[in-house]
């Protein structure tokens, strides 16, 4: 409903203005609508303000950051017409591996006995490398064996989780160096948010203004036409999946640095939240359409909903039920929008 009121003025604006209002505006209105909804209900049911609580807002945005970083990578994969189901497990795998290099040398439960205190960027690079390697395997499988991305990344989802468990025999890893922990707690605890924003801005620019981004859209819009246009689809897809893996690795670093521990069960279902954020943000599962800004707003919508329901003391079961419904509604709206577009031709 909110989207309809938001898109209606577009039609009239389209003629004089050069560009149509981007679809992000309507998604943003949905976000404001949901926030306002909780604000009003908050005063009636709980007797306090939802938005006027700085620490709540900080928690929302901190929670959103980890999913958001993953979702920026997943967005690119979906724009190529693919899907990445492995992000959550890749978070666990790169988190576990990197964590063992982030431990203090004098920590009692140290995994690598010969470890000395390493500067923060070494475990960070290890985590990024593990994530990118997983992405490379995904991309390689998809382009060389031609299996559907769903299957390739499903395999990675299961295997990476296995690696995460095997790596330390299932025991959690903690006792990180101060400098590494800053990745999740630095800058007055805002470090995850800052990292998320940098990632979002960088990839927004990449997708909109670089050749790499144009090729990503082209492959999703029509792979055959992309091939004839001279685009090397195989190597491009591998790069895109590597970016998705790398960002999952980065999200893992932020997550373990923030909670100061890594365990094999972490990141469970993150891939679905990331896909949901993209889809709610208007990224089309059929490829070729969608923007990073949309995904960022989509992630915020998820975060606000989660926090809002907790704030209203809605039971966790209901939260999941409603979250599922929202994802479906987002896809229905996307389909409706595409149908309308093709009917006018």
């Amino acid at each position: 409903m909110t989207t309809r009121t938001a898109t209606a003025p577009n039609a009239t604006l389209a003629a004089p203005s050069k560009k149509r209002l981007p679809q992000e505006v309507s998604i943003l209105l949905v976000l404001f609508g949901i926030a306002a909804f909780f604000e009003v209900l908050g005063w009636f049911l709980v007797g306090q303000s939802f938005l006027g609580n700085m620490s709540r807002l900080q928690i929302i945005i901190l929670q959103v950051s980890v999913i958001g970083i993953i979702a920026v990578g997943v967005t690119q994969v979906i724009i190529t017409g693919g899907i990445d189901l492995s992000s959550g497990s890749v978070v666990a795998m790169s988190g576990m591996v990197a964590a063992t290099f982030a431990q203090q040398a004098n920590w009692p439960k140290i995994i690598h006995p010969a470890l000395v205190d390493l500067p923060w960027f070494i475990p960070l690079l290890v985590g990024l490398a593990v994530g990118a390697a997983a992405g490379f395997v995904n991309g390689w499988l998809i382009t060389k064996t031609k299996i559907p991305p769903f299957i390739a990344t499903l395999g990675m989802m299961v295997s990476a989780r296995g690696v995460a468990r095997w790596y330390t025999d299932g025991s959690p890893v903690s006792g990180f160096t101060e400098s590494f922990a800053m990745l999740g707690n630095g800058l007055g605890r805002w470090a995850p948010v800052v990292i998320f924003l940098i990632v979002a801005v960088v990839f927004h620019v990449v997708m909109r203004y670089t050749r790499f981004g144009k090729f990503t859209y082209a492959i999703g819009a029509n792979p055959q036409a992309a091939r004839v246009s001279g685009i090397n689809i195989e190597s491009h897809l591998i790069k895109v999946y590597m970016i998705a893996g790398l960002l999952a690795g980065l999200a893992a670093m932020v997550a373990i640095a923030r909670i100061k521990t890594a365990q094999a069960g972490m990141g469970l279902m993150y891939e679905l939240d990331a896909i949901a954020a993209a889809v709610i943000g208007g990224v089309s599962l059929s490829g070729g359409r969608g923007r990073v800004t949309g995904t960022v707003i989509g992630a915020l919508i998820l975060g606000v909903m989660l926090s809002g329901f907790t704030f209203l003391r809605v039971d966790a079961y209901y939260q999941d039920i409603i979250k599922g419904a929202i994802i479906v509604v987002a896809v229905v709206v996307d389909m409706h929008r595409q149908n309308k577009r093709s009917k006018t031709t």
Partner: protein
Amino acid sequence: MNNSSPVEALSESSVIPQTKPYEYVLEVVNARKEFPGVVALDNVSLKVRPGTVHALMGENGAGKSTLMKIIAGIYHPDAGEIRLRGETVHLATPLAAQEAGIAMIHQELLLMNSMTVAENIWIRREPHNAFGLVDHAKMHRMTTELFDRLNIHLDPDAEVSELSVANRQMVEIAKAVSFDSDVLIMDEPTSAITEKEVAHLFEIIRGLRERGIGIVYITHKMNELFEIADEFSVFRDGHYIATHLSSEVTRDDIIQMMVGREITQMFPKEEVELGDVVLSVKNLTLEGVFHDVSFDVRAGEILGLAGLVGSGRSNVAETLFGVTPATSGTIEINGKEVSIQTSHDAIKLGMAFLTEDRKETGCFLPLDIQENAQMAVIHDDFVKYGFVQEAKLEKVCLEISQKLRVKTPNMHECIENLSGGNQQKVLIGRWLLTNPKILILDEPTRGIDVGAKAEIHSLITQLAHNGVAVIMISSEMPEVLGMSDRVLVMHEGHCTGILDRADADQVKVMDLAAQ
């Protein structure tokens, strides 16, 4: 409107002796259809007599497809009415139209590819045995009978995915007949089939006509009109223009009705002084697809590639352009042997390739005009440190689209919203931006209207004039003969001959193509 007697006589002499209290099997009266911002149909009427083939002519965007979709129950008219066998009907859904006796054969065939021919025809109406299960033997029998009546030779148990486009069309026609339809709508049925298949199709259409079916036939091809249609109606910009007997008019009359202006010359072929050999192909082979194809193309020359669909014409083009690299043979450009393994290699060597199928391999439908136009050029130009130089590109894209007369409000319109002819112009623009020395065009004017066609033809001539070596594949014989300096004919993966412009005529080309 047109009460001339020959057609009446025809319908009365038709075999089916039903008493027909109606003169027209289908009438559309004053139909109007608006879409947001466009009036697609304005007060349009159409009258189809039983036992006739009624052609609909008009440029793309004239409103033919909209009218068809109204008749087939896909769209609902905002005003006006539809009369079937003299009675007003309301066609709420395509299914309702089908049950009322209107069958439509879409340009994109709508069959279930993984099911058999028989299953496709009798879907929803399968014969059942005593246990309420589908009786496959009976279904097979029913299909065979149906095919016998129509003179179609297909295995009812073949899977549709294994059939050629022409044979799939036959299945669609048989399905339409199995509904005892009185009206059959065919949307450009010959756009993707070979000449021989066209002949068979026309035979079947004539058979249907004798059975008293009213056939509405959309086409862009003028010679088909004279060959198969009894009457035709012309539309332009959503308006009804005229209905005539096809025996009464000439080709030029029709073109004039369609475009509202006179096209003096369909093929503006110019004599161009030919330059050096730019592209030389020797024994090019893609194992199992085509073998030992050799030819030269000079600067300023247009080499036509003729042959039946499936003869390997498009495959040669794809191999030249690195989409499917050759398994053996050599390609020389300006006398130097080159290796083309990817399309990017070909682009770097100054080649460009307009593919056959706009939707499948040409357009990026979700993207806008500029993004579509710039995709081939940004490999090597207009990019600095990986960043696309949007402002510069917008300027050149705008220039080229104005030169090609793409009808659009601006460069950020989604290409999906353009007509076929305009989409094709954008795709041509994509390749012109790369300044090609060798231009391969695969069916450059398929499915686009007469006006745009003429513009594209004169553009090709102009490019040749500027020294571009052009290879043009086309299934339309007049186009190949009218545009080419030489015609290379292919048959089943082999080059069967190269004819000079002076020698080439329809008979010789067909002779080489069909062997």
